[in-house]
């Protein structure tokens, strides 16, 4: 069991041991419930057929919601990013999850990602804006530029700004972040 637990992300040998001992101390019904929950989640949760976010239904809750603006699509690399953006409760549009970033070293090209589906979605629906919310790594930059080119003929394309964290002091920001923030400056409104 320790070996199995250690395969989970963020779990080292010590944590794995602690988790295993904890599970052994619980009552059988509790352990049953945990195992059941894991298995059920695995069996039921799949990907939304529209946006590829994790979903127990064929089409996820966000895609089905009539209260959300279906003219705006926010493109992210991973379902984790959807969860992070949802926590802000600032965004009222829909999402599109790519399932990774372009990385030839790992054998991931545009065909391995949900990029074709995005282009089809944008070209068919009436989309007013595509927001690219992808991290500014080398791979993220390539993916952003690649999608930008494909989607631009159909709609307005924007990307999120990168820069200073809130509550951060300008003098403590590093050169890289400052340069980025300066690049993405905008007019005061």
């Amino acid at each position, binding site marked *: 069991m320790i070996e199995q637990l250690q395969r989970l992300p963020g779990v080292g040998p010590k944590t794995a041991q602690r988790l295993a001992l904890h599970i052994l101390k619980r009552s059988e019904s509790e352990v049953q419930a945990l195992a059941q929950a894991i298995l059920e989640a695995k069996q039921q949760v799949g990907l939304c057929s529209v946006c590829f976010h994790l979903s127990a239904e064929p089409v996820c809750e966000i895609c089905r919601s009539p209260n959300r603006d279906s003219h705006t699509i926010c493109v992210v690399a991973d379902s984790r990013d959807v969860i992070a953006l949802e926590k802000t409760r600032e965004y009222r549009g829909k999402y599109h999850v790519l399932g990774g970033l372009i990385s030839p070293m790992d054998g991931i*090209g545009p065909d391995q990602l949900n990029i074709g589906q995005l282009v089809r979605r944008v070209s068919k629906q009436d989309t007013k804006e595509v927001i690219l919310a992808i991290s500014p790594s080398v791979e993220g930059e390539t993916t952003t530029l690649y999608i930008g080119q494909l989607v631009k003929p159909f709609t307005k394309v924007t990307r999120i700004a990168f820069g200073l964290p809130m509550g951060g002091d300008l003098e403590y920001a590093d050169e890289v972040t400052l340069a980025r923030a300066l690049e993405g400056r905008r007019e005061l409104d």
Partner: protein
Amino acid sequence: MYLKTLHLRQFRNYREQQIAFSAPKTILLGDNAQGKSNLLEAVELLATLRSHRALRDRELVLEGEPIGQITATLERETGTVDLAVLLRSNGRRTVSLNGETLRRQLDFLGVMNAVQFSSLDLDLVRGGPGERRSWLDTLLIQLEPVYAYILQQYNTVLRQRNALLKQRRRSEEVGETPPDLEQLAIWDAQLAAIGSRVIRRRARVLDRLAPLAQTWHQAISSSTEQLEICYAPNVQLEQDDPSVVQQTFLDKLAQRSIAEQHQGTTLVGPHRDEVEFTINQTPARQYGSQGQQRTLVLALKLAELKLIESVVGEPPLLLLDDVLAELDLNRQNKLLETIQDRFQTLITTTHLGSFDAQWLKSSQILTVRSGHIEE
């Protein structure tokens, strides 16, 4: 800047060693393979987070131990700083300043500066272009720490682009449709954008270093020789304008695209740069005598000291690894004249015979014996 204390724990062949530096010059005396160079390597790591001897952190940690640690107290004009590097034989390093762990290693660079001069440095002249690029990069990282980030980004783009070129070649060989050209064009654009930042920064630092090195070279060779340092970038740098350099870069990529496709690797960019040294119009690499080559390397190192001092505003440390004995008296004297007491210097040697008596008097002498240091 002045290194006051150094503490090595499970680093190389040191299990636990505390060293207090009490004079501007410290001579580390000991037979071969006792740990003299390991100590200098620890200081080099604190300054650059790079080692010119180790490829992996595993080599730096005492054999059989999971972690090793270097801690130091450095006195700068602005105050005292505690530096620490935690090395793991299996995993990433952790760096901290004044007891606070830094999220990014970039912020650790530039706190301490050092110029390393070892007998291996003759490879700077005799070795391949890779040696010279690596020397230039290490210097740049100390002068402009953000360069470490740029270089790392460049290397990532390069590896990704090479992987894509290989994929294209492979699929062509088996008759499949290769990955699309649009993707390659984006990697090209990124390579050119980040690559031109590397080129411009390299050109800038050589512009400042060359006159210093020239002056030193003349002084050491008693004005008989004229040194020229010429940056020979793979992508020509005609104008120091980012958009011009990027365009030249892209043009050259387009020119070489068939060759790149054929070889499945990136042939254009600063990873193919060269730095040329010529003495009296003769390439030092091919024609320079041993003595000329030594003079050249010494001039470069002295120029580095001066350049770092003028940029950082404080004299950096000088690490002389087994190199003093190799220099003749004239060159030794030039070096010692420059150092005086301004640059804190750590010197390794197997015997004290070649040192000036005056010198020995003002130096702290430490004996190194199989991972232990005694006063």
